[in-house]
């Protein structure tokens, strides 16, 4: 909670938007009208269906397919469906624990409320997008945490002791940095069979991205540590018999926290783009589970892009998230 308050206070507009998106995605299943795998073959590549205000309440038009080849739709004349709030729909577990089937909005069957249109299987793109965005958030936060644990430890040890430990750690880091990241990611991914389940794939991706990210961080932290170690207060702490662990936790980490916060923020986009990229290539999260990358992969062919240009939205969402995180990082750096 303190982190949230800090982002609200210091993060500027970008921080507020990100916090809003993140908290919304946490209760995503409730906010979206449908489950991520709610297939409707009769609505394949159907366009967005917005609710309308009428005298008899809020309604949505019911669509029917006109041409199964071009996937063109028209509203069935005179046929509409009512829109409800806090209604029952697809089942889900809130936060993965509490079973529920309540949704903020939904439409009576066979009507469908769809803010962004549908994909090839007639699944609601908006519902999938929110769940995919949450995956991006959680995966990158988790991945950043791992890569920080390794990177910061390596950097502190390296910068504090120097000597041969420093050489070993830094040379190891150089090895990781000498391989183009996508090549390293793919090499790490090759350790596991191509078609592993999405849950495992998420772990593998997180591990792979952390593996790629730690070295750059370790270098930065090492530099900061080396300059801080020369300060008088560290010397005083040492002279009064503090153990290295105490010095790391009580003196070095708090003093480099401004760098750390900026580095955390600026390393999140790498994880978001990395997950999206690997899933896009079919090496990450596998369908039917939504991820911003595998949803974009659905839009790869020109015919699909012409029929359902809204499938590109997941790509734009990646761009938006990266822009916001970069802006947040800049903002924190400028205001500290």
């Amino acid at each position, binding site marked *: 909670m303190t982190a949230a308050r800090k982002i609200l206070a210091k993060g500027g507009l970008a921080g507020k938007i990100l916090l809003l998106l993140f908290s919304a995605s946490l209760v995503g299943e409730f906010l979206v009208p449908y489950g991520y795998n709610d297939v409707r073959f009769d609505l394949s590549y159907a366009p967005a269906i917005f609710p309308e205000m009428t005298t008899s309440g809020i309604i949505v038009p019911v669509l029917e397919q006109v041409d199964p080849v071009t996937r063109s739709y028209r509203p069935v004349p005179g046929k509409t469906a009512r829109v409800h709030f806090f209604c029952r729909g697809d089942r889900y577990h809130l936060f993965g624990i509490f079973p529920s089937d309540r949704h903020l909005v939904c439409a009576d069957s066979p009507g469908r409320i769809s803010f962004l249109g549908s994909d090839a299987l007639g699944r609601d793109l908006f519902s999938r997008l929110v769940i995919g965005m949450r995956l991006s958030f959680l995966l990158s936060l988790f991945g950043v945490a791992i890569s920080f644990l390794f990177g910061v430890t390596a950097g502190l040890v390296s910068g504090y002791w120097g000597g041969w430990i420093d050489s070993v750690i830094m*040379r*190891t880091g*150089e*090895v*990781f*940095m*000498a*391989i*183009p*990241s*996508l*090549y*390293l990611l*793919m*090499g*790490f*991914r*090759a*350790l*596991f*069979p*191509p078609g592993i389940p999405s849950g495992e794939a998420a772990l593998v991706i997180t591990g792979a991205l952390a593996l790629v990210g730690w070295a750059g961080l370790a270098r930065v932290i090492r530099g900061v540590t080396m300059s801080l170690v020369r300060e008088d207060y560290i010397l005083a702490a040492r002279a009064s018999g503090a153990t290295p662990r105490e010095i790391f936790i009580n003196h070095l980490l708090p003093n480099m926290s401004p760098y750390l916060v900026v580095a955390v923020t600026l390393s999140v*986009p790498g994880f978001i*783009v990395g997950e*999206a*990229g690997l899933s*896009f*290539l*079919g*090496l990450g999260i596998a369908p039917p589970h939504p991820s911003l990358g595998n949803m*974009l992969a659905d*839009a*790869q062919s*020109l015919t699909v*892009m*012409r029929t359902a240009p809204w499938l*590109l939205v997941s*790509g734009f969402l*990646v*761009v938006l998230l*990266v*822009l916001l995180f*970069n*802006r947040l990082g800049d903002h924190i750096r400028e205001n500290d």
Partner: protein
Amino acid sequence: MMRKVLIRLLNLVPVLAGISFLSFLLMRLSPGDFLSQMSLNPQVSPEIIAKLRSLYGLDQPLPVQYLKWVEALLRGEFGYSFSYHVKVSDLILSRVPNTLLLAVSSVILSWGLAIPLAIRGAMYPNGWIDRTLTGMSYLSIAIPSFFLAILGVLLAGETGWFPIGGASSPGVLGESSWSVFLDRLHHLILPALTLALGSIGVLYRLMKSSVMEVMGKPWMTAARARGLSSSYLRRRYLFRNAVNPLITIFGFELGGLLSGAAFTEMVYGWPGMGRLMLHAVMSQDLYLVMGGIMTGAVMLLLGNMIADAFLWFLDPRVREE
């Protein structure tokens, strides 16, 4: 001078050894190898599998295997690809030129666009050119290469200006070398432009701040006061001093560029290393994966060294150090 170059080269040895060890580890850590896949095939008898295993040295202890592999690497042997049924080195050699062509042309495009634009932007900071370009540079940094490539496919499909897929049109091989060249160029433009647009943002911002810094130097004012023409000043003094940090980060950028090139290749069907790697990972063709990692690392290290050489050539301060 020779000594410095030699030391640089010697410093590469542990890094290369580390990379080879890492890629070897990645391969050996994987639960199965290509033979375990093959052994699922009922048509292949266990004896043949055992024979192949000893032929490739897979039944020997790990350190022996590693040394054997390194020894083979030094001879330029990367092993055998089990999905393409050819030697890995042949495959890689046939793909590396395509990736390099793509990467080099995108570097030429992005530097050629970013540097003049950044000098113009720095001349009138916060002018409309600078403000537009700064805004676009944020976008350029944020947009992932694969998404940009997809948008490129859409552009090509809607306008018909560019061919999509592959590096040459079918049937062009029989024609004159000039039309083969033009065809290749036509296929290259869109992937190279995609890749360049993705890296132009960082270059623009860095170059602009560097130009502004150099322009504020007292010796610039002195040179201007002595009546040097502004175009001479730009070419002879401003550019050479301001381009320094750009070359310094080139090595860093190159890693991202090669990764981006891999994504771009996959979307456009450009037959380069990235597509080869993806295929290798998908079919668990481990020798090919390892060869790909090694090649990627060597390309990156070479790029770094070329950048260092450029810096040495352009900047007398680096030479005197």
